[in-house]
């Protein structure tokens, strides 16, 4: 038994990934860097979604709605009442007088969204499968309308413009670099948190409920507690991703997080592999780059770009699901099997 | 006479684990053959290999023809009915709808009209309770429905996987009584996997004992009853 090899190998892979992320900005243009920032943001959102759908087995079509809640929370805290006045709008009195530094709004957005997620998770306990998907879809569909209705808080359809972001504390970093590191540091921390959660008692409880609720209950797992917890954590992750997104684009309106984003997030989790954290990174890349490459060479001739985009995107999704039904994680598992067999020998 | 079913050096595996290491056996037309063996000896896998629900190497010949590999639907149409471990009923469907699914292999309506009375002769209670949801039947009734569903398709070969599992002794006796009757009246050929070796050897003319994925002992039921190893491991006297 060589107990040390598996954790050491895992550590090496993680360290390598961290190093790659850290040095990447040296080798890419600022435009590319922005795209990699979005990958980091999607990575965070997908981690949460995979905890909810992959591990605890609850399907949601409303993940983008939680991102919107996180985004608006961050935007309101960044602006404050004074910010609203600068935009020439009447601000609600629930807001603080002065705006906060963008980076501090991220954890708050996560917390607020997490609490809302828990609250949503409680009535959702009574639903499963298709009914649950439908209920979450309802949230996703109605949220933009609600955002438009509460104009004094959300700026209505016109949305909220945020001050342009820049590196805080006088650090000498260009804005794209700063946003990149901000997103990926968040992603790194939340990856470790998710990994700690799913590898032990909590993760097992989630998977047990997913695979056989009756047996899980009789083993002492409370489905109510763990399903609600999964909703709360998934929402918190979405909240952080939403805040990062709002900060990255310095603007938010009811259509920033549309229903289609929820659907694409779910598709990306499946492509990455359900109940696998390593697959999530693949899902995040697909979510960012596939729509872009679906309407540009070499995949599509520019002449057809506009019409071909959605078609190429859809066909590619279908091919991925057909060819690797277990998602990228299963492919990864197959490729690394000899190494793992050696490590656990 | 050539046998109805013949397995020649059949091997099968689940992922990296080999379950069958070359099983050879024959089932003659009109015979009841029992398949005994310890937990994990490969009894269930043998039936699955025949019905095409697990991949195999080696030859499986049914009515003189190689059986279609990995095509359970083709195997069923060829006349082999498999009542799996756990029965595989459509629990949400009614008794009657389950029977209809059994008739599906030969064209539902016509087969059902012709075969249902014959099946109801053996299981009269099924007719009275044809609208009951299958999942609400007791374990014994479910096993009988699974048997009836297989019979409606008028198979040439019936494969039963542990029909006694989870059933009360009286019900086990009842089921094997019906199997014997079917064999005597209609000449139905049966290959049965069973842990209750007493009832199995009572019903079967011949039996095979599997050990670690291979046939270890074979012979007439009466011979096996005298075999010391069989008595110790399977009969308990």
């Amino acid at each position, binding site marked *: 038994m060589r107990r040390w090899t598996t954790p050491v190998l895992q550590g090496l892979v993680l360290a390598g990934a961290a190093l790659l992320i850290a040095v990447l900005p040296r080798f890419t243009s600022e435009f590319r860097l922005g795209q990699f920032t979005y990958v980091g943001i999607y990575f965070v959102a997908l981690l949460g979604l995979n905890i909810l759908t992959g591990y605890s087995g609850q399907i949601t079509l409303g993940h983008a709605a939680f991102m919107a809640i996180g985004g608006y929370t961050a935007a309101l805290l960044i602006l404050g009442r004074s910010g609203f006045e600068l935009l020439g709008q009447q601000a609600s009195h629930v807001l603080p007088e002065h705006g906060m530094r963008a980076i501090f709004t991220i954890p708050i957005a996560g917390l607020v969204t997490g609490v809302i997620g828990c609250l949503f998770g409680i009535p959702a306990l009574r639903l499963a499968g298709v009914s649950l998907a439908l209920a979450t879809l309802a949230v996703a569909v109605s949220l933009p309308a609600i955002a438009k209705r509460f104009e004094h808080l959300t700026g209505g359809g016109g949305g909220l413009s945020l001050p342009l972001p820049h590196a805080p504390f006088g650090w000498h970093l260009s804005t794209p670099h700063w946003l990149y590191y901000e997103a990926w540091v968040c992603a790194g921390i939340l990856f470790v948190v998710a990994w700690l959660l799913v590898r032990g*008692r909590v993760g097992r409880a989630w998977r*047990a409920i997913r695979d056989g609720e009756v047996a899980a209950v*009789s*083993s002492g797992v409370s489905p109510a507690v763990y399903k609600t917890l999964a909703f709360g954590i998934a929402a918190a992750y979405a909240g952080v991703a939403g805040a990062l997104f709002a900060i990255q684009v310095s603007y938010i309106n009811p259509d920033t997080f549309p229903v289609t984003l929820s659907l694409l997030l779910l598709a990306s989790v499946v492509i990455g592999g359900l109940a696998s954290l390593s697959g999530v990174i693949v899902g995040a890349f697909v979510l960012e780059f596939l729509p872009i490459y679906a309407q540009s060479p070499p995949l599509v001739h520019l002449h057809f770009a506009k019409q071909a985009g959605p078609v190429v995107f859809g066909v590619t999704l279908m091919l991925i699901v057909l060819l690797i039904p277990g998602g990228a994680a299963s492919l990864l598992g197959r490729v690394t099997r000899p190494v793992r067999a050696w490590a656990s020998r | 006479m050539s046998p109805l079913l013949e397995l020649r050096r059949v091997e099968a595996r689940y*992922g990296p684990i080999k379950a069958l290491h070359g099983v050879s056996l024959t089932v003659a037309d009109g015979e009841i053959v029992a398949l005994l063996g310890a937990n994990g000896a490969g009894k269930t896998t043998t039936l699955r290999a025949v019905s095409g629900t697990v991949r195999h190497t080696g030859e499986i010949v049914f009515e003189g023809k190689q059986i279609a590999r990995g095509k359970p639907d083709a195997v069923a149409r060829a006349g082999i009915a498999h009542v799996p471990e756990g029965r595989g009923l459509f629990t949400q469907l009614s008794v009657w709808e389950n029977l209809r699914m059994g008739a599906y292999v030969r064209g539902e309506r016509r087969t059902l009209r012709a075969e249902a009375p014959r099946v109801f002769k053996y299981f009269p209670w099924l007719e009275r309770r044809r609208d009951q949801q299958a999942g609400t039947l007791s374990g014994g009734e479910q096993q009988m429905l699974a048997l009836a569903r297989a019979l409606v398709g008028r198979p040439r070969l019936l494969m039963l996987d542990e029909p006694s599992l989870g059933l009360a002794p009286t*019900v086990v006796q009842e089921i094997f009584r019906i199997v014997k009757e079917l064999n005597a009246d209609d000449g139905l050929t049966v290959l049965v996997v069973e842990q209750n070796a007493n009832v199995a050897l009572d019903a079967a003319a011949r039996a095979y004992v599997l050990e670690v994925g291979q046939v270890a002992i074979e012979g007439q039921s009466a011979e096996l009853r005298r075999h010391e190893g069989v008595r110790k491991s*399977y009969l308990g006297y």
Partner: protein
Amino acid sequence: MAQQHGQTMRPAGLDDVQIAVANPARFDADEHLAFARSVDLDLFEAEASDLAQDDAAIQDWSPSKCIRTADGHIIPRPMALLAIEDVTRRFGGIVALADVSLAMEQGQIVGLIGPNGAGKTTLFNLVTRLYRPNDGRILFDGKDLTRTPAHRIARLGIARTFQNVVLFQHMTVLENVLVGAHARLRPFSERRGRKQAQYILDYLELGEFGRRLPGGLPFGTLKRVELARALAAKPTLLLLDEPAGGLNHEEVGDLAEVIRGLQHDLDLTILLVEHHMNLVMSVSDRVHVLNFGRKIAEGTPGEVQADPAVIEAYLGAERVAAA
């Protein structure tokens, strides 16, 4: 009730007490308290000294708490670890269990047999609180379980297996066992938990399967993995639903050894539902028989096997001929 006893005026007043105890269900506890105190001790000097010794018991007299021993002493009833009292459960119009009572003492192995659909699994589901009884109550270690949520049952010390095997298909055998330990595991005790789970697997000779998924394992092995998962909860009461499924005669013999080992080594109390009569009759201290949701017999394995009603409803003629 006390009045009635007064009218008969038989000298052996305590015999009435004994009768009362034998049929606890017919008596109200408060009435008993009144009756016990109304017995004129001086009239029966011989028994008076006995009663003085048992004064403590008399003070807290109720039929569920006291019994009279063969030599006439009234002593506190040894508390049953599990007491099912007049439990009824209906599903729609169907009565799955009607007024069933069953008591198990600490360390006993109790067999529960009966035809399919007699209500055995329903009883398991009531004890593990997957169902709630329509009537009656279930006491575990003196605590009423009627209002306990199902996921608390494991923490109280009750673990079970399932008739049709309910394992977590996408988790390894070892992880399945670890879920069984869920109620006991604290954060940061992962490593110890894994070690214990591996120990349980080794104890049940499942050690080699730890890293495998349940799919593709033989039925008898899956049944044993479920047993391992139940043991991981470190229960005091173990409910086994047909553990002998998929095993040949010899392996059933080994299983009997395992079950007796659990009783001796781990001091477990075991309720066993099984159709394999050799197993039930060889390991059980007592056997209860259900038929159509009612208890039709109870006794030692020998008594139950000889009971004509049990033979008629369950064992069948062949069995008698063979015996």
